[in-house]
């Protein structure tokens, strides 16, 4: 397995992390070490073993579809970094 610098750049974009070029080699090196740690999993025989997604074998609980939230727009937006007229501001997306 090779976590080369290309793979780091590709993955960083998928994860939306603007990794500066000069950090890529060091990060590639660390990720390579982490992947070397998990690589041992490939040697374990798991034929016919069911994947386990969750510790409890519970069914998804359902509840009546009723409104339970109050209108808390102001409270919810209070921590937003930029707002205007009760809306979140982002850079222009349409020219």
């Amino acid at each position: 397995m090779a976590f080369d610098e290309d793979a780091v750049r590709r993955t960083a974009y998928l994860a939306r992390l603007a990794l500066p070029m000069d950090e890529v080699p060091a990060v590639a090196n660390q990720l390579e070490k982490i992947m070397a740690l998990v690589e041992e999993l490939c040697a374990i025989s798991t034929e016919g073993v069911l994947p386990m997604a969750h510790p409890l074998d519970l069914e998804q609980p359902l509840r009546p579809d009723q409104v339970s939230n109050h209108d808390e727009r102001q409270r919810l937006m209070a921590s937003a970094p930029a707002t205007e007229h009760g809306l979140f501001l982002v850079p222009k997306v349409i020219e």
Partner: protein
Amino acid sequence: MDLHDFSLRQLREGLQKRDFSAQELTKSLLKRIHTLNPELNAFVTVTEAAALESAAQADARLAKGESGTLLGLPIAHKDIFCTADVPTTCGSKMLKNFVAPYSATVVERLAAEGMVMLGKLNMDEFAMGSSNETSYFGPVRNPWNTEMVPGGSSGGSAAAVAAGLVPVATGTDTGGSIRQPAALCGITGIKPTYGRVSRYGMIAFASSLDQGGAMARSAEDCALLLSAMAAHDPRDSTSHPAAASDFLRGLDRPLQGLRVGVPEEFFGEGLDPEVAAAVQAGIDQLAKQGASIQSIRLPNNPHAVSTYYVLAPAEASSNLSRFDGVRYTHRSSAAESLDDLYLQSRYEGFGAEVRRRILVGTYVLSAGYYDAYYLKAQQVRSLIREDFRRAFAEVDVIVGPTTPEPAFPLGAKNADPVAMYLADIYTIAVNLAGIPALSLPCGFTQSGLPIGMQLMGDYFADDLLLNVAHRYQQESDWHLARPNLKAGEA
């Protein structure tokens, strides 16, 4: 003995008998926090005014004759639990200015009991770390030796309790984050069965592994706190319908006939000899108290760390995608386009370890690698759970070391993430299976650092773990030792 050394039971008795008021108790601990926290850095936020106000309310309720179990008793929360009107940072620059619009269920429940919150506790960023060094707010120092780490990620909680800044604290445990710092700071901490404690309002790291729990200086105090924390919560879809329990009820049961399993895999290469000796002495103590000891195998435990470092980053990369620089997080001022805003804000807002785990998680979930890593790890997770199933058919409790070594120096493992990950080699399998486990003090190294012993139980055997730990603490005094802190008496 000073107020900061009192157990919850002793504090409660003092309040009921009016030996001191909740306000006096709160003031005395706040004074101790002001003296000791500048060095320990256990608290990120001290909520002095709100604490004095809730203490006054508690005093009014006590004066009316109310006798709630936790009424007027102090607590502090790991800064991963959302608190309305008080910042919740999760140890990250990303949430430096975040004030949650609501409180976590755990916070609400304990406040309703009349507990007095003194503040929010430092932690590894987004609970990712085993040394509390990844916090944006700086490392926490171990009260037993301030050159050493307190463990993590609930390092602020463990240090605060060990230093007597607060008698009990909340913590969370995804791969050992309650038990490992509890061991390194010489306190008792329980990670309950998955589904016991509501995750509502607890900032998500890896949702199928995260579990809130109690940290205190004794098993009895953990039992008191956990009894108020554990409850079914309709707001958390993974909350178990039978989550609630009175953990004090069975605390005194004798250990006669208790079947203890000691896994061979926990005593192999890499275990510090002083830790091995202290844990062995702890096991001998349990035998002396009536338990029968037998050797067991957990053959897949050696795969737990690798399994975890596929699954936890995968879940984290998904959970942390919500931090986008738009709604309530750090926002880059350098961005010119929307894509750039995401890219820059996330790079600037997350620290190096969190970025690393997001990258690993994104990678193992990306096209072409899913089967090789993610699916494979989920299958090995089944095997790890199966190991425990087989073991608990023969024994009631599994006992071993909590950590391979005692507290290590600050900075010692920072350059090598994999070395840091191996600090959790004995704690991770428990989270993968979802079973409960507890760490309690069982000795000290020659250099005076605490050593932790881990008890693991079957699903919903949390009460048995607390019972065994409590009985052990009736016959030992490791949990009564206190670090030597130079502070004005509080």
